[in-house]
């Protein structure tokens, strides 16, 4: 037993070096890109002219409907040949694949949240002659933001775990490193250490998003109903579905 703990003690610091760095890099880069992709595609799907909505929808379905691992390989091995440019490198490949993949799910979260902002809010902004950009930035987005945070929370936690595939494009992330450490300390301590670290990252991320969520909702004075609806929508998106449209345009 004491040996187990000393092995765990050996494994943890080893993983907290390069392993943690590559995992965090993939996660943070992927998270930033995910939000950008989600917002661009989500707004396009909700607000764009018909052709743009179709394009955005196709992109979203493509990334949701194909395997992350294959996307990763494609970007890493095929894309450089297609473009004739050099390889993106493992880190950028990982960030790109994660960002696009989770961003496609995020787009559905963004679209659903825009849709959940009551029609009266959109119409009042129009009645006050606000141009589109003003309406979105000042009226709609702050309300939709509060509604999309539960969904982003889920996706961020999924993304933390999703980074475990980046070893496939030669990053030395937590999962890869724990495989290395396993040879020295054995299966149990190595993977338990990795699990613990993943759990802590996901937990911190989730806490941070809950705090953001609480702040955004307090600002809006949102009632329980809206919050519950947003959580339900979030879970529906995770299950691969589309939030039902109750309101808005």
């Amino acid at each position, binding site marked *: 037993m004491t040996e187990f703990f000393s092995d765990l003690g050996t494994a943890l610091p080893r993983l907290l070096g390069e392993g943690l760095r590559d995992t965090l890099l993939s996660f943070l880069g992927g998270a930033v890109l995910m939000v950008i992709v989600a917002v661009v595609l989500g707004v396009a799907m909700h607000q764009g002219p018909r052709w743009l909505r179709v394009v955005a929808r196709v992109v979203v379905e493509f990334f949701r409907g194909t395997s992350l691992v294959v996307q990763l390989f494609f970007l890493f091995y095929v894309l450089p040949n297609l473009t004739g440019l050099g390889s993106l490198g493992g880190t950028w490949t990982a960030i790109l694949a994660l960002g696009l993949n989770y961003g496609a799910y995020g787009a559905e979260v963004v679209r659903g949240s825009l849709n959940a902002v*009551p029609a*009266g*809010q959109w*119409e*009042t902004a*129009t*009645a*006050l*002659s*606000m*141009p589109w950009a*003003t309406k979105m930035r*000042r*009226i709609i987005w*702050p*309300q939709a933001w509060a509604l999309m945070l539960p969904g982003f929370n889920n996706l961020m936690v999924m993304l933390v775990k999703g980074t475990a595939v980046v070893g496939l494009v030669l990053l030395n992330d937590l999962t890869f490193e724990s495989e290395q450490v396993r040879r020295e300390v054995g299966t149990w301590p190595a993977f338990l250490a990795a699990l613990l670290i993943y759990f802590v990252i996901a937990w911190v991320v989730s806490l941070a998003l809950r705090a953001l969520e609480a702040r955004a909702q307090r*600002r*809006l*004075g*949102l009632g329980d109903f809206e919050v519950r609806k947003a959580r339900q929508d979030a879970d529906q998106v995770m299950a691969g579905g589309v939030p039902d449209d109750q309101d808005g345009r």
Partner: protein
Amino acid sequence: MPTDPDHRPTTDARTSEEEPRVRFEDVHKKFGRTTVLEDLNFVVGRGERVTLIGPSGSGKTTILRLLMTLETLTGGYIWVDGDPLTHDRRDGKRVELRPKQVAQVRKRIGMVFQQFNLFPNMTVLQNIVEAPVHVLGQSREQAAENALSLLEKVGLRERADAHPTELSGGQQQRVAIARALAMDPEILLLDEVTSALDPELVGDVLNVLKDVAASTDITMLIVTHEMQFARDVSNRVMMFDGGRVLEEAPPEQLFSNPQHERTQKFLEAVV
């Protein structure tokens, strides 16, 4: 009003004082296959206060929403001060105007909704200041000063920094009225603005509106079930049925001596 290069120069005849504030010409509105308005023609003069009455589903809300550009015309024209709102006639053809041109004329129109629709991400003051700053280009100070005097007018100056959810429905609606007035509209559309309120809160809102009617020359189109209010503020009442103007008259006349049986029945039912 700021000049817009896209704004079509209007002929003298169109902008002359003779042009009514609002003119519906052969207006047609279909939702899918349901025709709601068919060849609707009416005129609202400058400074007129017109109340629209009629059974539920007769198209009163649709008329106001068309004027606010919240619905799209499926036929005909709406003219505001002689300017086309969403569609113009050029060489006898009906052409849709570009959004920028629509926005120019739309700025002359304001609307208050049944459900208040205050922006929940803003305080009362911010709700009122937002559009004058971002749409009319007023400075924040100027807009805030104006907003405070409007709040004074609706009796809520001390609630300027409150959050909309801290206000009663009646107070929220008075803020919504102030917000619409802050854009200095020539035309104000009021769609059943007291229908969502508890009965004891209706009076304050109606008093504010009577005050607005008495102290400004804003043209008003009002949809209401408050017949006493309609009597007090409007100079004309239009009875709608089946998407048409069944009859119209000054309120005293229409309420006391309706010409159509339908109008009679309707009035008996609401009073």
